[in-house]
């Protein structure tokens, strides 16, 4: 009903434009409807962002904890016992707690921060603003999307506090470990809560994704052809398509896993002995779960990275005062990545006994992803080439993104080869690869987005000095943390192990691991500085005085500084040109709303 009301008021507002009604007066907002169950896409974006930040602090703190174990396996930290209780008896994290921390770190960062916090925030904020819509296609579903995410968050948070601890079978939740409560202490109620939380999360993503797609396809303002949209919108569009098509498959996998756990079915279980006793389950296949999981799991990494790519494209063009290089090639490569994302999942499963003949196809398709990725990298570099770059924190993070995307992407070529993967699978090399290419890069894209659109969110700027400190420490720190892990991985050091100092061949990395842990602590501290900057700037940041502080062409900067629900007080502006007319015809930038001149060429 309420979404009807909003759609309705959209039409009323268009009437209202003639007699200069203030849009605000259609909604007498109470605190609850404005800040809590808000249907305004801008408020929902803030809700996603702040929830994401809270999760990011928790998830990153977990990584500090387990890095302490990896870096200093013999040391004891009595303060750990005071926060973790019996999970860190005597000041040393127990093996069970270690596995739980690793699992939760992965789950939180991949799903709650880099999926919901990243695309949830910026798709919500930017899609209506940049395509010129009053709100999403269905503001009510959008509101539901956030609250399903919130519920998922609550359940996941609750799982941290149950007596047997949260799920601890790795973020991929492979059976049989995750399917049998007796298999380990972390496979008990923790896994049920994990699956419940993730099911709610999938619902949230689907509601959000449906909205993003139908808003982009249906609610664009007059003149906003698909090929005039900023690249951010294209990337959110493909992200949403990936999510809508792959999350349901994950849900099927989870439903079967839940049945195995509680209904005694044997989808994934066969011939298992626990504590010397044979289980009745027969005929299942654990590999089946891996297929279902990675059919989502691989698109998921693009769900994480595509929004970052889109925002980086936008920020790089704005800050180097140049049109984006190869606009159509950028869209084409996003499309190619989107298609290939569904055809490469088995490269996570080269060592599961996959038919080598089949594996060869997956190798080929995986390596094909290098082509669109390289096109994008080339276009980013040529965009800033000879540009008049403003080194704002946002543009630094964008440039940092390109750097980490290259260095992390190159190691993907190693891992994508099934024969090399046999050696590198489940080693620290994999950790290094995906943290740089997906974790750090996506975070850089997110930071770029936050610094760049913070004025749009809160009408104030973030502090740039802290921003520069944040960037340089994070950039250098990220390489110092993850680069050495490549060497550890090539030497065969396995991931997920609680303590590798028992092996003579990995003992040599003791000093290196200590070093990594110290850098992790430093980088974590700087992220807290960022969080401080974020919250401080919401209330005390330098105020925005002009509508368009970055001199950008796109539509979001034509709205008032504190835009109400409905975004534009009058009519929605009409669009005449693409979003990248920078340094054209002797002008620094030409907004999208300016008609094409008589002697002007359309791009």
């Amino acid at each position, binding site marked *: 009903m309420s979404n009807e009301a909003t*759609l309705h008021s959209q039409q009323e507002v268009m009437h209202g434009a003639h007699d200069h009604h203030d849009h605000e007066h259609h909604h007498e907002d109470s605190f609850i409807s404005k800040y809590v169950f808000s249907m305004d896409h801008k408020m929902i974006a803030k809700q996603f962002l702040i929830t994401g930040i809270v999760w990011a602090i928790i998830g990153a703190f977990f990584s500090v904890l387990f890095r302490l174990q990896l870096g200093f396996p013999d040391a004891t930290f009595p303060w750990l016992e005071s926060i973790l209780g019996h999970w860190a008896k005597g000041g040393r994290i127990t093996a069970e707690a270690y596995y739980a921390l690793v699992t939760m770190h992965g789950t939180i960062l991949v799903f709650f921060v880099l999926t919901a916090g990243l695309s949830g925030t910026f798709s919500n904020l930017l899609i209506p603003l940049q395509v010129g819509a009053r709100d999403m296609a269905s503001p009510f579903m959008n509101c539901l999307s956030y609250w399903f995410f919130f519920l998922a968050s609550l359940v996941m948070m609750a799982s941290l506090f149950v007596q047997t601890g949260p799920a601890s079978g790795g973020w991929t939740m492979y059976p049989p470990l995750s399917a049998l409560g007796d298999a380990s202490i972390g496979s008990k109620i923790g896994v049920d809560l994990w699956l419940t939380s993730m099911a709610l999360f999938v619902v949230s993503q689907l509601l959000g994704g449906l909205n993003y797609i*139908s808003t982009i396809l249906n609610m664009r303002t007059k003149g906003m052809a698909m090929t005039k949209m900023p690249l951010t919108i294209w990337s959110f569009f493909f992200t949403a398509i990936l999510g809508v098509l792959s999350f349901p498959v994950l*849900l*099927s996998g989870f439903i*079967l896993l839940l049945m195995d756990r509680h209904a005694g079915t044997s989808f994934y279980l066969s011939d298992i002995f626990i504590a010397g006793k044979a289980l009745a389950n027969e*005929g299942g296949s654990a590999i089946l779960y891996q297929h279902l999981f990675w059919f989502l799991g691989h698109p998921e990494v693009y769900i994480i990275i595509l929004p970052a790519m889109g925002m980086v494209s936008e920020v790089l063009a704005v800050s180097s005062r140049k049109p984006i290089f190869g606009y159509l090639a950028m869209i084409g490569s996003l499309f190619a990545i989107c298609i290939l994302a569904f055809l490469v999942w088995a490269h996570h499963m080269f060592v599961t006994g996959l038919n080598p003949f089949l594996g060869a196809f997956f190798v080929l398709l995986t390596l094909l992803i290098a082509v669109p990725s390289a096109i994008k990298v080339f276009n980013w570099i040529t965009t800033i080439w000879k540009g008049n770059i403003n080194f704002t924190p946002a543009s630094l993070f964008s440039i940092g993104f390109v750097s980490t995307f290259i260095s992390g992407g190159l190691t993907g070529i190693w891992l994508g080869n099934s024969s090399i993967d046999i050696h590198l699978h489940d080693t620290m090399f994999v950790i290094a690869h995906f943290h740089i290419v997906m974790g750090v890069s996506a975070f850089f894209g997110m930071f770029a987005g936050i610094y760049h659109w913070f004025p749009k969110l809160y009408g104030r700027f973030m502090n740039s000095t802290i921003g520069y400190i944040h960037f340089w420490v994070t950039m250098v720190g990220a390489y110092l943390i993850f680069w050495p892990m490549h060497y550890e991985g090539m030497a065969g050091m396995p991931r997920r192990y609680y303590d590798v100092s028992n092996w003579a061949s990995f003992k040599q990395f003791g000093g290196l691991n200590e070093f990594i842990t110290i850098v992790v602590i430093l980088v974590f501290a700087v992220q807290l500085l960022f969080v401080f900057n974020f919250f401080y700037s919401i209330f005390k940041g330098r105020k925005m005085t002009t509508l368009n502080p970055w001199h950008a062409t796109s539509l979001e900067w034509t709205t008032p500084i504190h835009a109400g629900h409905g975004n534009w007080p009058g009519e929605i502006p009409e669009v005449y040109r693409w979003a990248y007319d920078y340094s054209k015809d002797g002008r620094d930038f030409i907004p999208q709303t300016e008609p094409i001149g008589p002697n002007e060429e359309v791009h």
Partner: protein
Amino acid sequence: MDTMTLEQRKKIHPHKYSLWIAMGSITMMFIGFTSAYIVKRSQANWLAFELPHIFWISTAVILTSSLTIHLALKQFKERNMQRYKQLITLTAILGVVFAVCQWIGFSQLKAMGLPLNGPVSASFIYVIVGVHMLHVLGGVIALLIMFGRAYRTRIRTYSAVPIEVAATYWHFVDILWIYLLIFLSIAR
């Protein structure tokens, strides 16, 4: 309002659009299940059996309900509200009857010695049919909301969009069931 709708520049109503994408999404979920089924079937220890016969009756029921909701939509557009209310009630009842039939199907399976925790081939039937049944019941809930709206006296709705969305969804779960039935009968 007509001119305004033009200015909105929407070719299809966004809710209908969202529905089409949602149907794609639900389809992906069942593709997930059925491809898992195919993968599993090619492995050892696959037990083949006849589907319970009541599934054919439930097919007839859901096909009829598709017809009734189609007629309901027609009656709504002609503003025969009395007939419309009767027809959506009938559709909702048929939806519940369908779910009951599926449930009876489950007990027949059990009686055949194929419980949920029995052979994997049977477990798949329970899960696939069960999840589909939930989607039909979701449609029933949507119809109940429509029903409530039709009885409101204070606010009257003239927009056919909600009932069109519901009808499209209803046909979708119908077609989905026919696909599943054919799939489960052939790929045994």
